């Protein structure tokens, strides 16, 4: 094999690698965690903000995660809708269809053990 042939093969290899690097396949932002800037993480080939931990929101000491007397939308089927007026009873309605009606209680607190009047 002559020197010119070797040079030709070397140039061909360089062009193949350069071509693959420039245009072939899906281009990725990251393949390693260290490809991303500090504060970001690599997920599915892209640098993204790391996901927040569960319980980071709504953790005010209330196990239900809502403030009594306020209304929260519960369209997802997992939340509660709470509505109450002092002196006129209270209503606790969950998306599951669980409804409690009561009257004459000023407490405004749902308690299934309390006898309805």
């Amino acid at each position: 094999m002559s020197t010119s042939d070797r040079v030709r093969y070397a140039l061909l290899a360089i062009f193949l690698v350069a071509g693959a690097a420039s245009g072939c396949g899906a281009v990725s932002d990251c393949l390693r965690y260290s490809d991303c800037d500090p504060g970001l993480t690599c997920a599915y080939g892209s640098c993204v903000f790391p996901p927040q931990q569960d319980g980071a929101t709504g953790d005010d000491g209330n196990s239900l995660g809502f403030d009594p007397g306020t209304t929260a939308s519960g369209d997802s089927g997992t939340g509660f809708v709470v509505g109450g007026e002092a002196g006129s009873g209270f209503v606790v309605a969950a998306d599951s269809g669980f409804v409690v009606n009561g009257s004459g209680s000023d407490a405004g607190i749902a308690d299934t053990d309390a006898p309805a009047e």
Partner: protein
Amino acid sequence: MTGRRTFALVLLAACAWGTRPDVAHAQQYLIGGSIAASSGVEGGGSQNALARTRTRLRIGGDVRIDESPDDIFEFAAIAEVEPRSGFGADIRYARAAGDRFVVDVGLLGIVAPASLYGACASFNYRLPISKRTQIIVGPEADFFFLGSDLPDGTVLWELRLQGGLRVDL
């Protein structure tokens, strides 16, 4: 009688010492040093994405014994220089395939700023430019499957083209 026996034993030991097979003097270590740069493409992961890999510098040495010059032990420090930096090392077993071709396999690892460990294989052509100096060029394939820098379930592969200089020391 005891003295003659002792003298005979000492004489026998001296003869044995003086006539022992001395293979160590026939062996000679042949040492070389090299510096090379490489870059290429890398891919892997569930997306099978492709990207240009980090440019790497490799500064290392190789050792072989004159009685078995085709079996070569190689070691090197490696530094990733762009677009991100990293530092590591590799060890390889190389086998000379002819006067100018060398094939090697080994283990390599990046240890900073995050760890990455895997295996490597390369094929080098050595073009002599003087009695003791050669230009080295050839492809290299790396596979990383362990380390804190690797997302879960990902095997990272790199295909590189490297070129550099090697000197017989």
